[in-house]
């Protein structure tokens, strides 16, 4: 019974991990059809921001929930203004340029923080579940993910900003003819996506540890989660996150974690072959 609960919690944690680390990419991809290969580095920058604030003595929750998103949001704004906005409509070129940016960020962080791995202590202690010791911080991540997704859903569904965003997503020409400048919307969307990635990086850093190259570990998973999910931001990420998270953890428990990851990647290839438009391109078509 305890074991079943632990497996369940681990699956839930993996789903939250996938959803949290890919939702920033999903915002940018869903609204702008831009694939940002520097996404993993945005997550990594969020982690390093949290680390820097933590060593400066700032409260860690304030650092990861407020400072990290703002810092990475500003970085995202700069990236959009300097690079991405020249490449709208050229999908492959955008992917290449953002890949270059990702290498650039890895190099910069290596220069500033060094190339060795660093960790942030988890601010929440573990608890006892039956005869097993569980990390309390996992629960915090699950909670944060639920809150974030709910907030995003409310904003997209029930506010004026969300309405404009969804309108621009469905038909940029109509949105522009109604007086909303698509360029401004794209700029704000990219910034918002980067900020959410920064938040994810800050929140996940205590569990994953930090390396300048750790963005690579996020980008692959985020990439397949978003692409397999399809164009709908929330439904897409949730559906593919649940699918991949469950597969990953089940195979991990049955065999080993590496096989879990490989099973997830193979499933992604098969799903893309069967549904090139992603899950939400076939099912849940009118969702957010």
């Amino acid at each position: 019974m305890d074991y079943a609960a632990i497996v369940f919690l681990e699956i839930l944690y993996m789903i939250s991990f996938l959803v949290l680390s890919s939702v920033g990419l999903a915002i940018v991809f869903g609204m702008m059809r831009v694939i940002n290969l520097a996404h993993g580095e945005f997550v990594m920058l969020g982690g390093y921001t949290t680390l820097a604030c933590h060593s400066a003595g700032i409260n860690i929750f304030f650092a990861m929930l407020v400072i990290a998103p703002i810092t990475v949001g500003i970085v995202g704004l700069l990236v959009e203004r300097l690079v991405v906005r020249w490449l709208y409509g050229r999908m492959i070129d955008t992917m290449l340029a953002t890949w270059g940016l990702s290498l650039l960020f890895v190099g910069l962080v290596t220069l500033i923080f060094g190339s060795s791995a660093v960790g942030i202590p988890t601010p929440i202690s573990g608890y006892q579940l039956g005869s097993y010791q569980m990390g309390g911080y996992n629960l915090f991540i699950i909670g944060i993910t639920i809150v974030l997704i709910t907030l995003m859903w409310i904003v997209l569904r029930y506010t004026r900003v969300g309405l404009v965003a969804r309108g621009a997503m469905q038909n940029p020409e109509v949105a522009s003819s109604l007086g909303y400048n698509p360029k401004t919307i794209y700029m704000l969307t990219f910034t918002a996506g980067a900020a959410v990635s920064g938040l994810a990086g800050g929140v996940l850093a205590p569990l994953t540890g930090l390396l300048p190259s750790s963005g690579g570990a996020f980008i692959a998973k985020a990439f397949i989660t978003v692409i397999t999910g399809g164009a709908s931001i929330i439904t897409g990420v949730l559906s593919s996150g649940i699918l991949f998270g469950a597969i990953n953890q089940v195979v991990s428990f049955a065999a080993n974690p590496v096989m879990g990851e490989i099973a997830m990647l193979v499933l992604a290839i098969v799903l893309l072959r069967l549904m090139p438009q992603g899950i939400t391109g076939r099912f849940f078509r009118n969702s957010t």
Partner: protein
Amino acid sequence: MNEELSAAGRIRWGWFIAWAAVMLLLPMVLEDTHTLTVLTIWSLLALSLGLMWGYAGILSFGHAAYFGLGAYAYAIASINFGESTVALFLAMLVPAMLAAAIGAMMFFGRISDVYLGVITLVVSLILFKFMNATAGDVYRIGDARLGGFNGIPGFPILNVPGFPSMEIWGTPFYYVVAVALLLCYLLSRWILYSTFGRVLLGIRENELRTELLGYNVPLHKTAIFSISAAMAGLAGAFFAMWSEIVTPGLFALGQSAEVIIYVIVGGLGTLVGPMAGAILLGFLKLLLGEQTLIDNSLVMGLILVLAVLLVPSGIAPQLAKFRKRYIDRLFRQRSGSSGRRRRKLGGSGNGKESS
């Protein structure tokens, strides 16, 4: 565009012979054939991607998968056979087979550009993860232990076919690699000259039209994907002999990114461009490796961003355009003003079509 189509399969024999002579005479001037060899290997890898991306319009985000697979196939086979001839053959065959399988799945499934990028990237990641996890005695193929993160050291290097004790290394090894590169270049030119190559160019320009003209588009794409993978595998095998160890790092994303940078900086849609890009940037990478002040990936990333933003067509086409526009005009001016006028009209028309 017509000009480019006819140029794709044409060899300027004079230039080719001059280039071959320079490559084969270089060891007499430069002592350091070790560096020359690795630059030539990177050129071969860049050529393999340049052929596929520049002429068939297929961009693989995980070309390192075939490079690494070639290296691993060579290492494993050469340990088992004790000599290099069969191993070298397998180093081309194994990546080609994998590419044929994956290519068939993608192209017959009509998967679009972006998803193609995702799938090729994921394939290289799967290989990277798997090879990293193969530590321990369970993972062995014949006599070769895969060795996980540490890779496979100590396999036989290249030998004269049939004589396992006569090993080829140093300057002779450079000659082997250089001749292989020249042959692969000729093969690529021949492919582009053949009907098969013409169809590939047609696919790049307009896939639907080519399909409606009755050509089997997925089959052509799968074939060029497979040929390119075989070439990358050969480069991988040479790299394995050069470094005398294969590690999972060969499959890393950074490796794939580097090849793409070589090709895009050198020039998409040319064969010389990618090779020149590989030599230039490969040399820069080696120089950067000797100091610790500036990180290598910072420079490479900056170059990629700037190349995409400022010279999306690459340096070689840019130079050709420059030559056409200014130098030819300079000669034209001397021969008379009416010629110059015609040239100008023709020139601007060409520019529009190719952009």
